[in-house]
């Protein structure tokens, strides 16, 4: 099919479009949500580590502050309890008090300075007369790879002038850092490092660093350069961790390090990643299935409609699209079904009409056959009528004429003049009747006989007729002017009837002229497609009346036609009666004036019509008449051409 060019079908196209429309936004939103979530969890994890470091710092500061406050209280108490003499130290009292203080504090030594001298109990701070910086609460006794590390605090009572350093073992700090805080999970830990990068409190994992040589990790270096913060980096084990480091000014120079393995801290992220991918994958599959199903569902009615359309194209007008939904496509299908229904009905109607038409045609054919039969019968009847007229009508006339004459001859003496005249009238009447019958038969003959067209020399024919006419009344002075060399393609017998009648009429109606002038000739060629039509119709109106002899529609296409005329200087006639001229039995003169049956011109017209010509007349009373007739030029021209070649 033509639709399958880029995409194999509408269904695939729909699937792709639907997929793209749902999948792309989902992917975008999913990715944004995922990355926001990822970032949130990640930064939360990092912040958590920082918070742990902060809390360890606070705990450490709190512990040191408490030790300082206790020491201050001790110094205030000391003057009261051991005599109040600042210049002379009561050593016994002092030793007793210090010992019990150290035991209560868990300290490992103390040194008391006063104006009355110094007293050291236990481990003395290795750094006498040390001045703490502002905010500093304690100081490590030395630094380096020493497992038995200690730190001391230094307090001065301004009113009594006593100063005291109290030394604690570094193990006193352990409760702050160990066990590792729960917030740092199973892999995390927090520990304290001194200013050189050596461990002060215990660490969780075995380490080569921090004992014999300082910890070299980057965060360590950052911290020792008095920075605090959180980073992702490697730890002393070269394991990826989240690092929270805090510089501790309260200890002079020290660092709290808190960390957790990235593996553990970011485990939720990996889980999120996995779940996201699985969800996306499942969603994708689901989406594909859904879109394919949807596309199928949408396209299905279209395919059905297409199939139905094909079916209709193949001529099955009863095909129906079966769509079970209730949407626009279903409406389309319903409309489609309606259309096919209408088509079917129309086709049925057409077929019925065709059948009816066939029936009608058969009926018509039957009628034509019937009419032809009737016509043939009528023709036969006419034939026998003619036969009967020819034989039977004349017979009584012969009797009338014959016996009248015999009577006139044999009983001549017994009849008076009137009787003889009457008998003469009877004879004339019967003879006229005889002529009438002959003319009628000729007219009928002219109408029915088969035409045999051949080259006819009209001039010669006119001459012969003229000769015959002259013999009728040799005493008459008649001048015939006959144009020579006129020939036409026509039936000679029929045309002879035309010439007989026209010249005969001319001869007859010039009977009262001293010198009769009768002319036969041609006016030349009349061309239909030139001015012919207008002229013809004018003539026709004047001379022919009700369309007698003229068939313009038949004329068209014939082309050239020649106009012939027969003119006389006889009685003529009133043009008012011209329309009656060519009707059978129509006469414009009385029998007394001129003899005739009134059939001659009807015969002329019939003959000319059968030759596809026209006939008309122009006349004026007492000024002669001119009869025109035309004959088509068609084949005659060719024949003449051939004759000319010979």
């Amino acid at each position, binding site marked *: 099919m033509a639709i399958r060019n880029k995409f194999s079908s509408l269904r695939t196209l729909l699937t792709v479009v639907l997929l793209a429309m749902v999948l792309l936004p989902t992917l975008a939103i999913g990715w944004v949500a995922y990355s926001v979530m990822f970032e949130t969890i990640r930064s939360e994890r990092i912040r958590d580590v920082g918070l742990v470091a902060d809390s360890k710092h606070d705990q450490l500061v709190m512990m040191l502050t408490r030790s300082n406050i206790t020491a201050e209280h001790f110094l205030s108490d000391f003057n009261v309890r051991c005599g109040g003499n600042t210049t002379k130290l009561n050593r016994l009292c002092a030793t007793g008090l210090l010992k019990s203080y150290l035991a209560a504090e868990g300290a490992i030594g103390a040194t008391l300075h006063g104006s009355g001298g110094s007293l050291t109990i236990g481990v003395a701070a290795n750094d006498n007369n040390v001045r703490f910086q502002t905010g500093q609460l304690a100081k490590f006794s030395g630094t380096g790879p020493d497992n038995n590390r200690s730190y001391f605090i230094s307090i001065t009572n301004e009113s009594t002038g006593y100063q005291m350093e109290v030394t604690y073992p570094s193990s006193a700090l352990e409760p702050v850092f160990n066990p590792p805080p729960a917030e740092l999970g199973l892999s995390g830990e927090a520990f304290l490092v001194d200013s050189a990068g050596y461990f002060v409190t215990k660490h969780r994992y075995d380490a080569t660093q921090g004992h014999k040589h300082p910890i070299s990790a980057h965060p360590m270096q950052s911290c020792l350069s008095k920075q605090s913060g959180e980073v992702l980096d490697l730890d002393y084990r070269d394991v990826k961790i989240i690092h929270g480091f805090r510089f501790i000014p309260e200890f002079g120079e020290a660092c709290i390090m808190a960390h957790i393995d990235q593996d553990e801290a970011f485990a939720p992220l990996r889980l999120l990643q996995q779940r996201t991918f699985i969800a996306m994958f499942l969603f994708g599959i689901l989406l594909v299935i859904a879109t394919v199903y949807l596309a199928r569902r949408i396209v299905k009615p279209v395919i059905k409609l297409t199939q139905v359309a094909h079916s209709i194209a193949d001529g099955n007008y009863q095909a129906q699209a079966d769509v079970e939904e209730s949407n626009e496509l279903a409406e389309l299908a319903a409309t489609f079904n309606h259309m096919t229904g209408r088509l079917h009905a129309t086709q049925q109607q057409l077929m019925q009409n065709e059948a009816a038409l066939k029936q009608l045609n058969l009926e018509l054919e039957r009628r034509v056959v019937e009419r032809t039969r009737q016509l043939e019968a009528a023709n036969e009847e006419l034939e026998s009528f*003619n*036969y009967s007229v*020819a*034989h*039977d009508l*004349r*017979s*009584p*006339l*012969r*009797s009338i*004429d*014959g*016996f*009248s*004459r*015999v009577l006139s001859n044999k009983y001549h003496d017994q009849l008076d003049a009137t009787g003889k005249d009457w008998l003469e009238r009877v*004879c004339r009447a*019967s*003879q006229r*009747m*005889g002529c009438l019958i*002959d003319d009628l*038969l000729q007219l009928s*003959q002219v109408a029915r*006989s088969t035409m045999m067209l051949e080259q006819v020399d009209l001039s010669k024919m006119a001459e012969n007729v003229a000769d015959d006419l002259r013999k009728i009344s040799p005493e008459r002075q008649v001048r015939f002017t006959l144009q020579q060399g006129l020939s036409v393609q026509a039936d000679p017998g029929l045309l002879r009837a035309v010439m007989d009648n026209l010249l005969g009429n001319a001869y007859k109606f010039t009977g009262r002229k001293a010198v009769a002038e009768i002319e036969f000739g041609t006016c030349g060629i009349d061309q239909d497609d030139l001015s012919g039509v207008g002229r013809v119709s004018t003539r026709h109106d004047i001379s022919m009346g009700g369309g007698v002899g003229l068939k313009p529609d038949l004329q068209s296409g014939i082309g050239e036609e020649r106009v012939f005329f027969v003119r006389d200087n006889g009685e003529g006639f009133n043009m008012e009666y011209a329309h009656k001229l060519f009707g059978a039995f129509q006469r414009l003169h009385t029998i007394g004036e001129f003899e005739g049956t009134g059939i001659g011109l009807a015969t002329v017209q019939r003959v000319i019509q059968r030759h596809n010509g026209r006939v008309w007349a122009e006349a004026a009373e007492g000024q002669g008449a001119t009869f025109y007739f035309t004959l088509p030029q068609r084949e005659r021209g060719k024949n003449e051409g051939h004759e000319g070649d010979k």
Partner: protein
Amino acid sequence: MKNSNHIILLVEDHPDDEELTRLAFKECKFANELVVVRDGQEALDYLFATGKYSGRDVCDQPQVVLLDLKLPKVDGLEVLHRIRADERTKCLPVVILTSSKQEQDMVAGYSLGANSYIQKPVDFNQFIDAVRQLGLYWLVLNETAVTCCK
């Protein structure tokens, strides 16, 4: 064939025409005996000596037959056909003498072997002329073949 008695056989159904023909013959002063038969069947009976003419000598044939075409029972063309079809009469001169000058009648008449075709004119004088010429030709000038009837 014997035709010494110079009989003329007139086949004519109408008594008026018969009478006019007789008058015309009389006018022309032909003395031949005129035998008249009224229809085609009677004409055949006469010629072939059958029916009421049985016993007539078949070889005694008329000098000329004047045959009308429109006849009761057997029409003139049929009679002509039978005359020409029979050995005994095929040389018999037959002149069609009828009212019609219809082309088809003339063609049919000559095709069947008519010797002449004459239309009876309405004008009695013309009829007399025609009969005169007819008689002069067929009764006086014409020589009839005598070999037809054995």
